[in-house]
């Protein structure tokens, strides 16, 4: 077994403004980024920036992402063996609200966050972080019915990739 240099890097994900990134677990219990294409409604006159950006990207907001995550993998994703951590309830409504601050992202959930397993927390943290920040660099605080967890970073940190 010999290491053979850098891995191949490609743009496997659709452009950021047409998808949310969900983090499911592979059959080998690894966190995988899975894009979910969403229909972005027409924003009218594209030349001028929308005065209310928060509203305009409603479908791309971290809350949408967390909601979609809690909803679980779709049929195609399940077929590929992707799944949620068992301790994550399949309950889309559990996502309450997500507040994106300057330095942290607060995710309020309608469930007991302390009972979540580490992979489940990681799924939530990564999904929220990458939804709030392009590189997922913001720490995420999970707040549930039983209090709040310490701020955590997504365990999947993007590594510098060679430009093509």
């Amino acid at each position, binding site marked *: *077994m*010999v*290491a*053979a*240099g*850098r*891995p*191949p*890097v*490609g*743009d*496997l*994900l*659709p*452009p*950021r403004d047409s998808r949310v*990134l969900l983090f499911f677990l*592979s*059959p*080998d219990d*690894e966190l*995988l*980024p*899975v*894009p979910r294409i969403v229909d972005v409604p027409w924003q009218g006159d594209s030349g001028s920036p929308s005065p209310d950006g928060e509203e305009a990207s409603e479908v791309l907001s971290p809350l949408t992402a967390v909601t979609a995550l809690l909803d679980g993998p779709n049929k*195609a*994703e399940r*077929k*590929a*063996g*992707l799944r949620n951590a068992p301790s994550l309830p399949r309950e889309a409504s559990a996502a309450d609200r997500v507040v994106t601050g300057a330095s942290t992202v607060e995710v309020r959930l309608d469930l007991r966050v302390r009972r979540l397993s580490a992979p489940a927390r990681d799924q939530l943290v990564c999904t929220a972080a*990458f939804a709030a920040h*392009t*590189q*997922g660099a913001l720490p995420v605080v999970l707040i549930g019915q039983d209090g709040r967890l310490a701020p955590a970073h997504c365990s*999947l*940190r*993007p*590594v*510098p*990739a060679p*430009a*093509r």
Partner: protein
Amino acid sequence: MKIPGASAAFGVRTRLVLAFLLVAAVSAVTTAALTYREARSAVLERAQDTAVASFREEVERFVPGLPLDLEAVRWELYDIAARSKPHPWIVFAEYGSTRVSSGDRPVSGVLTEDLRRAARTAPHGSFQRVVKDGKAYLTIGMPVMTRVVAGGGAVPSGLILFAVMPMTNEETDIDALVTAARDGALPGLAVALVPALFAARSVLRPVRELRRAADSMGGGRLDARIAVRGRDEMADLARTFNSSAARLEHSVQELRDAGARARRFASDVSHELRTPLAGMLAVTDVLDEEAATLDPDTARAVRLISAETGKLAVLVEDLMEMSRFDARAAELTTDEVDAAEAVRRSLSGRKWQDRVRAELPEGIRIRLDPRRFDVIVANLVGNALHHGAEPVTVRLSSRAGSLITEVRDSGPGIAPDALPHVFDRFYKADAARSRSSGSGLGLAITQENVRLHGGTIRAQNAPGGGALFTVELPFDGPASGHGAPDGPATAHGEGPGTGPHTSTEAGA
């Protein structure tokens, strides 16, 4: 003479050739082994590096959209497989629990769990050489990373691509190298034979010349020399041999000259003594006649002088005879005679016929010098009578082309330590008995006479006691090849020669 033949099993030639071949074989094998190792790793590494680099390149060209569409991915894999380099490979894709490949089966049996785990967990590509069912494969695992946003950092996409490439061509190449090394080594060994034989020849030629020269020196040609070629050790050896041979030749020549001078001196002395002796002998007869008239003391002195003069005359005659033999001036005057008649004449001439028992079968005719044969018989019988004891027997017989003359006495025989010397000149077995009746040359003269005839003489102690002298003379003369006159074969008798009174001298 033992000469080590050129065909000796482990001669210098064989050893030199073997050493050359060994050196050639060792260097050929070493070179082949090093070449094989280097070439093998070079060939394999080049193939691996090419395969890994081109596989990564192909994978990066292939950008499936996540989530995977299996059918689309399969076509992409066909595309990658079609562009395989340097050898055809089969591509396997894994995503989650999805398995797709460009081959018949979605999962390869060659990929090891190790490679799978490495590709899944390590953020870099890996390859592994696998030998399965005697075939070598190169397996490459590539975890595909994906950029989160264009130009940004990358995270593992979960998609892993594997390539399985048979290395048969490389194995064939390496096998070809081995074959080439082997095929090259054999002619190499054959070629090494040529310098080996040349080297052996250049070493062995001086050795052969040296042997030939030493051989001819042993054969008496002391002027044998070797041509000195070059300046190597062999030339040194040849020079040393030549100078040694020259010194030896010089020494031998000096010895020969000294011997010749001594013989000439003895010859001259005996000649010079003969004339005065002849005069004295003429007077001794008168003295003997007059002795009776002298007073007893003077008469004894006169008779002593007369007797000693007679002995001196005999000694001088013997010395002259010896000198003739030494100077090779003795000649045979042969005549065909009846052997029994010749012996009888010898005995009766000395009035011994009553004291000697003769067994002389009639009708043996032989060609010899009658005078010298008379000397032989007379010396042997006289020796037996003087030093042995009666009865003395003379027996003639013939055997295998030779006339055998045996003279045997009934004395105590010859002491074993005296046996080898009985034919030496002036040899006396009993030193106390230095004044004897003979000259001390009788047996020596007998031996020379026998040699002159090409025969042999032998002294031994007979089984029943007493000394036995055996003379063999070839019937057809000295030219019959009956043996070069190498001297007497002196055999030790079986009987113990005990007495001090041992026959050593021949009275003439």
